[in-house]
């Protein structure tokens, strides 16, 4: 007769008890952080995921602002993405994005390198450089609207008085409007780049710079071979953040030009606004929003890949 062997706490071996305790500890270590993160995850789900799913759903639907979802239409909304109107807006958005981010980074880097040196009045210049960042977007647009006015603007009046031009330039004409809004955006973005890169410059170990100088690396060579590689993670982060911000900017461009003249500055955000609030076509607007999300995701993926390579 075989006696049934039942394990109880009393007859568990010390090894098994220890294993059980270790497993419980592992489980606790796994669950506890998740529980602590739960409120943040819930908030993220509510604020990001649910609206995202809703937009994705509406992009395949006939939907208006007042009536909401009406019926499924398959890929009909996405067919608009092949129209000249949308492609033109996409092209302008690409110019807007690449120019704004690229030039902001270049100028921001140059200014932060300068301000990192012990120049006279460094504190004063650091303060001035950050000032554009303090203005709200709408105020920036209104301020510049008056500054660049072809007849009454300060800029044109100064240029005329200096004899550089004979009559006022219409900076918001069809040929110049996009360049002008890009310029104003760069003016607004440079402080962010400067602040980020200056923080990064402080983290570059002095002994590495000194060692490089001893090896004969000075000026431009030092920047290319020491400074830039050390700043790469911050530059990548700035690129990602600026790109995401630039893609979603609406108020500044709308106040300056309304997307005109003649659609010259109708970037995606303006096109989406007009589609949503003039045509009230939420299905089409959602399809465009999905495209914007895709572009931002691509930029994010590129950033993560570059960062991973940097770490390796």
């Amino acid at each position: 007769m075989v006696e049934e062997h039942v394990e109880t706490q009393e007859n568990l071996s010390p090894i098994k008890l220890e294993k059980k305790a270790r497993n419980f500890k592992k489980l606790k270590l796994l669950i506890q952080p998740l529980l602590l993160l739960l409120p943040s995850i819930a908030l993220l789900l509510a604020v990001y995921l649910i609206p995202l799913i809703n937009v994705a759903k509406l992009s395949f639907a006939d939907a208006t602002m007042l009536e909401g979802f009406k019926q499924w239409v398959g890929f009909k909304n996405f067919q608009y993405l092949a129209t000249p109107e949308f492609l033109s807006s996409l092209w302008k958005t690409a110019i807007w994005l690449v120019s704004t981010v690229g030039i902001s980074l270049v100028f921001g880097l140059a200014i932060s390198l300068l301000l990192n040196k012990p120049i006279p009045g460094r504190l004063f210049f650091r303060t001035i450089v950050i000032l554009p960042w303090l203005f709200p977007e709408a105020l920036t647009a209104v301020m510049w609207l008056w500054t660049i006015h072809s007849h009454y603007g300060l800029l044109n009046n100064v240029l005329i008085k200096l004899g550089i031009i004979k009559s006022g330039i219409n900076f918001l004409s069809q040929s110049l409007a996009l360049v002008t809004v890009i310029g104003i955006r760069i003016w607004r973005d440079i402080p962010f780049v400067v602040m980020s890169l200056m923080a990064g410059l402080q983290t570059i170990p002095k002994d590495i710079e000194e060692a490089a100088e001893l090896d004969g690396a000075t000026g431009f060579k030092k920047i290319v071979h020491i400074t830039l590689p050390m700043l790469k993670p911050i530059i990548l982060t700035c690129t990602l953040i600026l790109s995401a911000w630039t893609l979603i900017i609406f108020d500044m461009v709308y106040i300056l030009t309304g997307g005109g003249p003649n659609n010259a500055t109708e970037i995606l955000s303006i096109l989406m606004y007009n589609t949503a609030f003039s045509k009230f076509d939420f299905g089409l607007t959602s399809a465009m929003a999905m495209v914007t999300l895709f572009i931002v995701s691509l930029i994010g993926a590129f950033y993560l890949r570059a960062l991973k390579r940097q770490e390796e």
Partner: protein
Amino acid sequence: MRPGTPDVVHKIFEPMIAEFEKENPDIKVKLVDMGWGEYDQRLPTMIATKTNPDVQLVSQGDLYTFSAQGAYLPLDQYIDNGLKDEFTNTLWNAGEFNGKMYEIPATPGADMLWYNKDLFKKAGLDPNKPPQTYDELIADAQKIQAKTGVLGLGMPGKAFSDIWNTFATIYQSKSGLPLFDEKSKTFTFDNPVGEASLQLMYDMVNKYKITQPNITEYTRGDLRPLFRDGKVAMLIDGPFIISSLTPTINLDSPNSFVGTALVPSAEHGSQPFFGADGWGIASDTKHPKEAWKLLRFLVDPQNQYTHGVKYGFGPAQKDVAKMPDYQKPYWQTAVKSLDTGFSRMKSDKFVSLDQILTQMVQKAVTGAATPKEAIKQAVQANAQLN
């Protein structure tokens, strides 16, 4: 809710609301104000989220767009017999859409010619003989520019609403037709008359150079202070300009430089564009009877008169047109200009049509497209809406 200049709105309506509440102690009214720009952006959201104020002054075009989607209450059930008789047929009709009344017209304003009599004198022109035709307008503007250096005519061209009103005025005067046929839902200007109207606007800017060169920097609102300050000799605008003028100019003074006239005539006379916003009731109001009571109070002729002369628009009702301030010369022009002309397009796609027309005019007047091309594009864009 009364969109517009908040300071002016509060000065007009706070006493009115106090009086209404005194007469109706069981009804409390909260005044909501916002600028027209903010109103344009917030109205769709307010309707979608059912936070639309109970009684509001609705922009005529928005009324057509949103009443088609059930946002406003048909008022026919409340309208008493005498009310319709207070209005001209043209104005009463402006508040009707799809056979129902959705607004009681309150702020009518037709395009008029505003001109600077002092600049006319300086240019050797008779200040009591404003131009009667567009050829005369161009000639007078050129003379003023040559003799005084001041711009002859202000023309808006920025990508916001109202820049196509001037096109509408010119086309209606040339053709005798409204811009839009409500039955077929098509534009009526796809023809040589439409092209000629756009061409005239283009010529005024680029050939005769009687306007500011960079019209895309200016809205109608931007031009009003320029007229006030003597930087522009003539404007085609509604009586809404009055609120920009009166803070610094005494229009009643015999020495006032401000002159008014009907818009220049063309082949079919002077047929200005006019708008007639009005009071409506949100369909999701929880207090329809009280809302109607307030609306009826607001359209009482005395209250309409106060609202009209203080804010700056013509008389909606026949009795209001007889009241003292509307006998003044500049108001008389505003009253007469409501006798002819056509109002905004009645379409549930008004907001989209507004954008199509804005783009059409901007393209044609800046030379980005020929008038024919611009009209074709507008016609195609309209066809895609229907």
